[in-house]
């Protein structure tokens, strides 16, 4: 790229836009598609493709700047050869590999890439610390090498994308655990409320009400919290629960524990 000033401003614009992509409704495919496009626009490359590893560790083609690259990347994955594949599994960058010199290294891939009009390939791992989550593939149609400045900028792109994706994954994992925590707390609340409601409406003690709810749930193979919610919400009638007859007193058989504050808990 000859116009250094305009390239610098393009780079800055890309990083600014990247941070927008990272904070707004984060979408991995959208992020990587954007990045593939910017590689072509800002760096001296003709096509770019992004691969990410699935949770089981297999690489998948996620985004590309053109359909031709997408086809190439899928071919890479099928034949298990090519710059992106090699770069990911060795977790090391490959810079400016001439495709015509790589006919032995990638016997299936190199001819196909040459046919598609590409002359050289660069692949950069998407890596932070020891964690490699994918790789970025850059193709050039010209014989000349990708410059050092472009390589550095490409590495920075890969780095920012990696950090964004890792952060997003960490937050998702925390969200899942917090949702489980909230659901567990909610279940406890529903069960206690249903106990009180049933005790009042059936004119029995709270302990007896718990027994009724519990045997109803067991007989129908439903979760206690689900039964409680149905009863509180009015979808489950009082008579339906009472029809099951008096509960076997599990208390006497020692099947029910006593909670900290005197409430009965399901063991």
């Amino acid at each position, binding site marked *: 790229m000859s116009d250094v000033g305009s390239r610098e401003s393009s780079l800055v614009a890309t990083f600014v836009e990247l941070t927008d992509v990272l904070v707004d409704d984060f979408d991995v495919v959208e992020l990587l598609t954007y990045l593939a496009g910017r590689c072509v626009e800002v760096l001296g490359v003709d096509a770019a493709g992004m691969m990410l590893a699935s949770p089981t560790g297999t690489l998948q083609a996620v985004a590309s700047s053109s359909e031709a690259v997408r086809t190439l990347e899928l071919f890479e994955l099928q034949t298990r050869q090519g710059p992106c594949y090699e770069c990911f599994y060795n977790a090391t960058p490959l810079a400016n590999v001439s495709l015509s010199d790589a006919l032995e290294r990638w016997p299936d891939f190199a001819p196909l890439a040459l046919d598609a009009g590409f002359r050289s390939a660069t692949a950069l791992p998407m890596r932070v610390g020891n964690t490699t989550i994918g790789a970025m593939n850059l193709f050039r149609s010209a014989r000349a090498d990708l410059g050092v400045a472009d390589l550095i900028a490409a590495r920075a792109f890969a780095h920012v994308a990696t950090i964004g994706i890792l*952060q997003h994954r*960490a*937050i998702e994992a*925390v*969200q899942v*655990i*917090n949702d*489980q*925590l*909230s*659901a*567990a*707390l*909610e*279940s*406890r*609340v529903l069960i*206690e*409320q*249903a*106990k*009180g*409601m*049933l*005790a*009042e*409406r059936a004119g029995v003690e*709270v302990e007896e009400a718990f027994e009724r709810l519990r045997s109803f749930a067991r007989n129908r193979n439903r*979760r206690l*919290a689900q039964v409680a919610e149905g009863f*509180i919400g009015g979808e489950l009638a009082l008579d339906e629960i009472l029809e099951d007859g008096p509960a076997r007193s599990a208390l006497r058989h020692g099947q029910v524990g006593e*909670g*900290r*504050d*005197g*409430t009965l808990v399901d063991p």
Partner: protein
Amino acid sequence: MIGARRRRVERLATRIDAARRAGDDGWLCGACADISGLSGAGIMLMAGDVQRGSLCTSDGVSAAIEELQFSFDEGPCLDAFRDDAPVIEPDLTGSGRSRWPSFAPRAAAAGAAAVFGFPIAVGVVRLGALNLYRSTAGVLSGEQFEDCLALASIAGTTMIELQAQAPEGTLAPGLEAGANLELRVHQAIGMVAAQAEVDVANALAMLRAHALDDGQTLRSVALDVVARELDFRDGRGIRQPRWRHE
């Protein structure tokens, strides 16, 4: 700045780990009180925007602070959680009274002179709030403030770590051990909903209103309902003559 915060968290986390290994039920709150140099600490659990009781309390005053916040739906933890920002109240008998008219005088009577609330979150995931109190009035030192922020952050990751080990649908035993989920209050909510033929949200509002009128906590009102000494059949709490149950 971020580096300094991280170093502080790492340094305090070592002390928290030591408390965890010593392991009594309220260890997390005990460690927060010790490390901050304040009189006591409690952690309020929130689900959505609803209070779910306390995870732990370090002493009786902290337990009272938690119970009062649950009773009257106001206080430092709720403000910290809802505004997602620290809350500093250096004088419960002065400025605190207008801020929390129901909570402040009762918390002061229980032995707290200054209260502080810090939101507990991991990333964008919000879990609850840490409350700390001191038996003498006054603000926090800069050092204490930084420590409290770090402690709230450690409390969040600790809660997630503990809950991550629990089977789905259950509360991690490590979280449950020191918790007070106010289950009796929820039994009373169910009873009042049936008595007054209202939904559970309205039943809670009726119990809260009664507690406020009667100068009691929500829990003590709830215990009367569960004991069938208080009845909301007529739309308000009416004390039942004892002989009915003899």
